[in-house]
């Protein structure tokens, strides 16, 4: 068996592996990589295991890494006492709404800028580009005031998910991502559909969406994932406890009366959705970063 048969992926090449020096180098790198993997995994594992310990066991001397027993009933107990069903439902609702609005508004905007190009597109696009690059450090308070009393309509958007959704739609980066991807769809397809009598919305639905599935999936995933852990805006705009999302709920653990083992299990619940999404859509998430890298 040849251990090094696929050795042509990095700087080291197959012929290097004949010398002991490079074998030692390779396995040193491998060992260091294992250490790094431990640094990445151990905190997560510790979190998952420690929740099962009771408080006494947690402070036992000498301390242990593994709990004495895995009481699964404790999971249900924490879930119910903290009312996690509500946090999950609120968060999924927030995230799904965000995905819907981003795909609709930013997707359409990208389509218009890329394919329809009405008069004024160039100005709009350069504004979008500059907006993306502008540091927004002074925006927070005026934004909050906008949501507190929305101009023209004079209604308050506080205690709703609208602030988060509307800000998603104002994400210049997503519009540019869509625009760049749509640029690669041949314009002749759009034109021939037009000749056949399809309107712009129909073209968007039946041609652009199916042909650009990857960019839709990537934007949807990133928006959804981003909202699962969202904290700042829900924290300052939503005070109604019936609408608390996961991110805010676990931040409030710090000032709650729950014992540390309960807090840890709650924390575990909070990372679970994103862990599962990452495990399933790994390829899209890692690949999606590259779409952003090349074109952003």
């Amino acid at each position, binding site marked *: 068996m040849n251990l090094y048969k696929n050795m*042509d*992926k*990095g*700087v*080291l*090449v197959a012929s290097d592996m004949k010398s002991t020096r490079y074998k030692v*180098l390779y396995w040193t*790198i491998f060992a260091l*990589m294992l250490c*790094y*993997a431990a640094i*990445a*995994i151990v*905190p997560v594992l510790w*979190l998952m295991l420690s929740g099962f310990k009771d408080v006494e066991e947690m402070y036992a001397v000498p301390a242990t890494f593994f709990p004495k027993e895995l009481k699964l009933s404790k999971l249900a107990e924490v879930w119910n006492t903290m009312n996690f069903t509500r946090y999950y439902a609120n968060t999924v609702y927030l995230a799904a709404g965000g995905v819907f609005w981003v795909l*609709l508004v*930013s997707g*359409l*905007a990208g*389509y*218009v*800028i890329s394919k*329809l190009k009405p008069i*004024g597109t160039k100005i*709009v696009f350069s504004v979008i580009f500059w907006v993306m*690059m*502008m*540091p*927004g*450090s*002074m*925006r*927070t*308070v*005026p*934004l*909050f005031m*906008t949501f507190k009393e929305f*101009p023209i309509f004079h209604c308050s958007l506080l205690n709703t998910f609208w602030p988060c959704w*509307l*800000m998603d739609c*104002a994400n*210049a980066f997503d519009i540019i991502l869509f625009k760049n991807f749509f640029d690669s769809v041949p314009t002749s397809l759009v034109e021939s559909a037009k000749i056949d009598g399809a309107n*712009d*919305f129909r073209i*968007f639905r039946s041609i652009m969406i199916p042909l650009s599935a990857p960019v839709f999936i990537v934007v949807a995933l990133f928006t959804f994932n981003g909202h699962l*852990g969202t*904290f700042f805006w829900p924290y300052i705009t939503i005070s109604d406890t019936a609408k608390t999302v996961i991110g805010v709920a*676990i*931040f409030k653990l710090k000032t709650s009366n729950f014992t540390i083992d309960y*807090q840890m299990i709650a924390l575990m619940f*909070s*990372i679970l959705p*994103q862990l599962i*999404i990452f495990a399933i859509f*790994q390829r899209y*998430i*890692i690949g999606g*970063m*590259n779409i952003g890298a090349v074109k952003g």
Partner: protein
Amino acid sequence: MFRVGTILQKNSIAWLLLLPAVLCLYFFVIRPQVLGTYWSLFNMQGYTVKEFIGLDNYKRILSDTNFIKTLWNTCQYVLWSLVLGYPVPIIVAAMLNEIVHFRNSFRFVVYLPSALPGVAVIMLWYLMFYPDQGGLLNILLTKFGMEPYVWLQDSQWTIFYIVISMTWNGMGGTTLYYFAAMQGVNRELYEACVIDGGGYWKRFRHITLPSVSGISLLFLVKQIIGVFSITTQPLQMTDGGPNNASMTLGLLAYRYGFVSVRPQLAMTVGVIMFLILMVFTCFYFYLNKRIESNSY
């Protein structure tokens, strides 16, 4: 008249489809950006704008010793994040680049911490840094026979510990960008170098490193911009404490805006941050342009 009519007809639907995105950008990016700057020149009562007071807010902020201390703190965040967060992703990517065995599993693990929601990561590290024997790091210390340590309560090092947790959370993405760039290196270059008798180090220094130097400069500036405006991490981890030792400009603006409700000061701090960040943003653009014109 006829021409105007057809232009309107041809463009009206496209404009209509673009309108939601433009409105969102106006209300949630451009308008708050302008108003935030404008209102920093006013006195405010709660969230109601009162009289024009010129640069008084700026005089007040800039003469505040607390502000200068916070500015220095923020720079410390940036410095530490450069020491830790800048080289480590390059090193890990270079190691991952060589690994042949379990390559995909390693890639998964490297990205894992970045797949977790930010607020959960902060809470996880908060519990790991727990100053008594229950925290993971103190478990490790006591295992090696050392005394438990106060971690975040040690005001000299609080910023360093917060930066560690941020780096742990944020470096997965950056590492994979570097990794992708290293994988993109033309293999013939390595082989040519091998024929000329170049060892691993020579190949790495003269072929691999130059191929990532462009994006590494971009990441450097991007990281400075990102870390300079951090707000939520110190808010969640220490709330600026102990004794304001981990205060940042972003957190200062947040406190003015939402805790002590003096929003005019929040916007003033925001504008000062904007001016500093703008320098780096322009530099980023300049670099980006130069790198793009150099690449083939």
